[in-house]
């Protein structure tokens, strides 16, 4: 059995046990304006960050940015502009004409401009990737400083799938020239909303 062969050969060859280091994650924190840093990093990834007063305001911005797109799925409560009901669709092929997806993100990470979305935010895992344009809505109070803080928040993560999204899909595989829009969305916009409004 390969499993036993591999495991017994590893057991035979492992070095003397070394302990896991003791890690003090708070040593990596600094006093910083997280919202500002977050926005700067989103822009550095080729994404767009927009501060909106509330979801109605966000909806107006979306109209300005995208006009009247043909196929829209919004899973963000309060931005009710869906033209497609995702529950009626089962295969990726049927999502291929999706022009705009609007989803809630759970939290953002200031140090790299990423936001976390998981299964419960996206309904179908293919949506954030297959859509032409992606909009993510985030409560501005949910900005973590760095990835250590992010994983602390994810310590009870139990879902089947989750992803950090940082800006739109991109490639630099042709002579290191950056092209925004590779196999996923051509644009990613993050709305920062003050939930208290």
């Amino acid at each position, binding site marked *: 059995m390969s499993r036993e062969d591999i495991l017994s050969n590893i057991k035979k060859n492992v*070095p003397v046990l070394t302990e*896991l*280091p003791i890690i003090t994650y708070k040593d990596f924190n600094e006093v910083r304006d997280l919202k500002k840093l977050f926005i700067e990093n989103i822009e550095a990834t080729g994404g767009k960050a927009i501060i909106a007063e509330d979801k109605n305001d966000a909806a107006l911005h979306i109209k300005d940015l995208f006009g009247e797109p043909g196929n829209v799925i919004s899973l963000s409560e309060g931005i009710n502009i869906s033209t497609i009901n995702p529950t009626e669709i089962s295969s990726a092929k049927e999502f291929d004409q999706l022009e705009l997806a609007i989803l809630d993100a759970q939290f953002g990470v200031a140090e790299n401009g990423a936001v976390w979305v998981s299964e419960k935010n996206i309904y179908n895992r293919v949506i954030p*990737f*297959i859509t032409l344009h992606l909009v993510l809505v985030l409560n501005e109070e949910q900005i973590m400083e*760095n990835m250590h803080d992010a994983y602390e928040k994810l310590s009870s*993560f139990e879902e089947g799938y989750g992803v950090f999204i940082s800006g739109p899909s991109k490639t630099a*595989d042709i002579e290191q020239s950056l092209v925004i*829009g590779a*196999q996923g969305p051509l644009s990613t916009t993050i709305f920062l909303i003050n939930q208290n409004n």
Partner: protein
Amino acid sequence: MIGHPQAAEIFNEDEERVNWHDKSLWGVRQKRDNVASKVKGWEELRELASEIKAHTLSKLDEYLIQFEIQAKKNRAIVHWATNAEEHNKIVYKILNEHNAKNVVKSKSMLTEECGLNHYLGKKEIDIVDTDLGERIVQLAKEPPSHIVMPAIHKKREEIDELFHQHLKTELSGGDEVYLAREARKHLRQKFLNADAAITGVNFAVAETGIIVVCTNEGNADMGVHSTKLHIACMGIEKLVPKLEHLGIFLRLLARSATGQPITAYTSHFRSPKKGNDFHIVIVDNGRSNHLGMPDFRNSLRCIRCGACMNTCPVYRRSGGHSYNATVPGPIGSILSPGFDLSKYSSLPFASSLCGSCSNVCPVKIDIHPQLYKWRQVITEKSHKDRIKNIVIFISSRIFSKPSAFKLCSKFGNLSLRLLPQSITNSLVKGWTKHRMLPKVPENTFTEWYKKNRML
């Protein structure tokens, strides 16, 4: 198979290309420096990453078992492959059981190492690499020349021509936006018509059975979420003990690789969608033996960022293909000899031992000391290089006798000054190919010292 020096010589025939290649990679190294310097505690992060990996390797068997238990709980099906052949057979068997003929694959150096594309190709399976760089080299029927930027050696005009030929695009003079959009259309059709997706694995978390895959293009996710079958292939060394450790490695990985603070997508796969299948193939292929080599086991800490390649003066000027190994550059030069010493015996010599690789390595692998140790192993095993042996023999005699040394340095100094350059250059042929010998001083050092020491 030709060795690195001969292959590098071929690459160096086109000086302009060498300079261009050198410059592109140095640009990536500079981006890395720029973002790394903005992180508070960067050096501490490297140290922690190194220690976590060392710990993981020291109880790798236990962590693999823990990972397997967790993955099974998550409804993943776990397979074990001793070598490349078994890996390929397992993947084929899974595909065959699902009657999958069209397969999309995101970047995985492991499947390159195992020759999976070639194997599946013979079984009439259409396997498409979906990372743009990998698609480019796949169309060109070449292996990747870099682990993060597979087509870094290709010029835009060549890609233009390649796409024109295979994807029927217009010749655009190498317009990157046009070419990337055409690739997008082409790959989108492949995703939508695929029966299965294969991905690599950046990290596997023992505690939770989660695998993490990082891409910028979104191609891994497009593949996995468009199909009903996901096969993830991972080497045994991809494990980290806990979910929280990902924070450390993800802060280091993209910054070291491309100078980005994080990749566009960092996907965490725990369970398949309802009705879908998720298989994980754990591959040894020489790694557990490598773990048993005390001088060289640290190289298994590698997280495949490619920073050592971008910084290496030899890699930048000889190109990835000259290493003839799945993983080129400094890290490849210490990994490959562990798997096949005779095949890769020239690689540890493809270095100036400047140590830049060790300095940028995010998990602090002692790359250049290992290169040096491999040289000793190889030199001991082979005495093929007769001229080198004669030179070393004569030198040891000269250096161990002061009188002989004095005589020879005087003679050497005189001949270097008096003989015509064509003769002196030919004495150190390789060295003078791209540079002149330095001006020879009028006195030997001993003469100079005798004259000046009283002052």
